[in-house]
């Protein structure tokens, strides 16, 4: 394919191709959408055992400086100053209107902050951080990022890094994994227990092959990554959240600590504080179609009389739910769990209900 020539690769691209992956363009990278096991099989395998994901396209950054946490808080509503050493937190870059520029993970790594951002936003995020931190921002472009996810992830990683088993959800450690110096966080994007492992690019393939040598581990592509995160109720930037949605509309209020809610001091604080106090006109909710037909992104949501009340932002088939699942924004009057709505699929209003997120019970190691 000629389009491949303009696409970036990751340190694992050659391995994916050897493993028989179907490669597709994604956020400017040539990435595996599925391996020979197929999306359904990969999804189920991750929920049952362990899946290995290449997420090296995501941006890894390091922020130095004595007051890095306090300065970081001028860009995000999350409590970064209150983040203990070795702890990781989910937050968002917001704009002056309170919209979301990107969502990200921030770790207090002791003498610096370790930051992971979305692939599609990483250039803009880097520019944003550069404006605040200047030379104290370092792009960790020489590192790959692997995610090992699923109920067997801990047992598998313990064979290469025994101390990983001691970690709890949303904590971080630097450690040798199979003798390779890595940054390990116990986190992920599947709703399962698991780890994200930042590894020097030139050792990434060796580490991936060591992990894949375990019979419990299968390589997993972007197709299953999407269905896993959807069942887990996790937002996909550019779909479920973007510059037109605030963290409060997106039901991410939990990610804004008490001190930040009271003090503000982040872009869009006026709107976000007002929405926390007075509510929003729409909200992100889970949606469970009652039939078998998936409702895809862009599907119109109506009330029982056919009046439009919102749109689906992510939707498809949930292999673990064994049926269609979706999320989207509805007028707040329709946001209560169990509310009956209609999803207009190919012109037909199909019955659905507002559902509690996540669709699948999380396996996080608290």
């Amino acid at each position, binding site marked *: 394919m000629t389009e491949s020539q303009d696409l970036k690769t990751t340190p694992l691209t050659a391995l994916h191709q050897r493993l028989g992956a179907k490669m597709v363009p994604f956020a400017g990278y040539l990435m595996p*959408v*599925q391996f020979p096991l*197929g*999306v*359904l*099989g990969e*999804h189920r395998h991750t929920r049952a055992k362990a899946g290995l994901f290449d997420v090296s396209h995501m941006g890894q950054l390091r922020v130095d400086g004595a007051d890095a946490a306090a300065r970081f808080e001028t860009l995000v509503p999350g409590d970064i100053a209150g983040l203990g050493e070795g702890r990781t937190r989910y937050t968002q870059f917001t704009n002056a209107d309170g919209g979301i520029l990107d969502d990200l993970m921030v770790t207090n790594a002791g003498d610096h902050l370790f930051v992971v951002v979305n692939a599609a936003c990483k250039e803009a995020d880097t520019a944003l951080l550069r404006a605040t931190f200047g030379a104290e921002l370092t792009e960790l472009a020489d590192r790959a990022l692997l995610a090992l996810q699923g109920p067997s992830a801990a047992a598998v990683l313990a064979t290469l890094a025994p101390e990983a088993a001691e970690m709890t959800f949303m904590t971080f450690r630097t450690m040798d994994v199979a003798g390779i110096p890595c940054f390990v966080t116990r986190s992920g994007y599947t709703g399962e227990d698991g780890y994200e492992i930042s590894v020097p690019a030139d050792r990434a393939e060796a580490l991936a092959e060591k992990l894949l040598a375990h019979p419990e581990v299968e390589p997993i592509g972007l*197709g*299953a990554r999407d*269905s896993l995160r959807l069942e887990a109720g996790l937002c996909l930037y550019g779909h479920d959240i973007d510059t037109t949605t605030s963290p409060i509309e997106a039901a991410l209020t939990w990610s804004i600590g008490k001190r930040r809610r009271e003090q503000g001091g982040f872009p869009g604080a006026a709107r976000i504080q007002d929405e926390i106090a007075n509510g929003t006109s729409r909200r992100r909710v889970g949606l469970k179609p009652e039939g*078998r*037909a*998936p409702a*895809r992104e862009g599907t119109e949501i109506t009330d029982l009389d056919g009046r439009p009340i919102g749109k689906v932002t992510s939707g*498809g*088939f949930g*292999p673990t739910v064994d049926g*269609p699942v979706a999320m989207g924004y509805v007028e707040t009057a329709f946001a209560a769990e169990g509310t009956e709505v209609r999803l207009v699929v*190919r012109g037909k209003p199909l019955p659905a209900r507002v559902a509690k997120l996540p669709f699948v019970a999380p396996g996080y190691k608290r």
Partner: protein
Amino acid sequence: MTVKYTEDHEWIRVDGAIGTVGITDHAQEQLGDVVFVELPETGSTVAKGDAAGVVESVKAASEIYAPVSGEIVEVNAALVDAPQTVNAEPTGAGWFFKIRLSDPGELDGLMDEDAYKAHAGD
């Protein structure tokens, strides 16, 4: 019995006045795991090129287009509860519907197996 193919990767196997329609092995391979199938109504009439059904994988939804004009005389209702049959046997048990051809001459505009193979790049 004649088998013909469309550019949209449907096949039609014609036996007398009745054609059986499904999607090709190439199409199911491209779609990936099929998780949902919507079939036309028995007794409805369709024109060549009309959307006559839907097949969805985890990744995406695709329309099934009528390769010829005619009346839907039977649908493969077993697919509704076992859509994975489309992956397992796309040209056999994974058929979608049977159609009574109103204009058998339309078959001449479809591809034979060799032409389809070239079209699909197999």
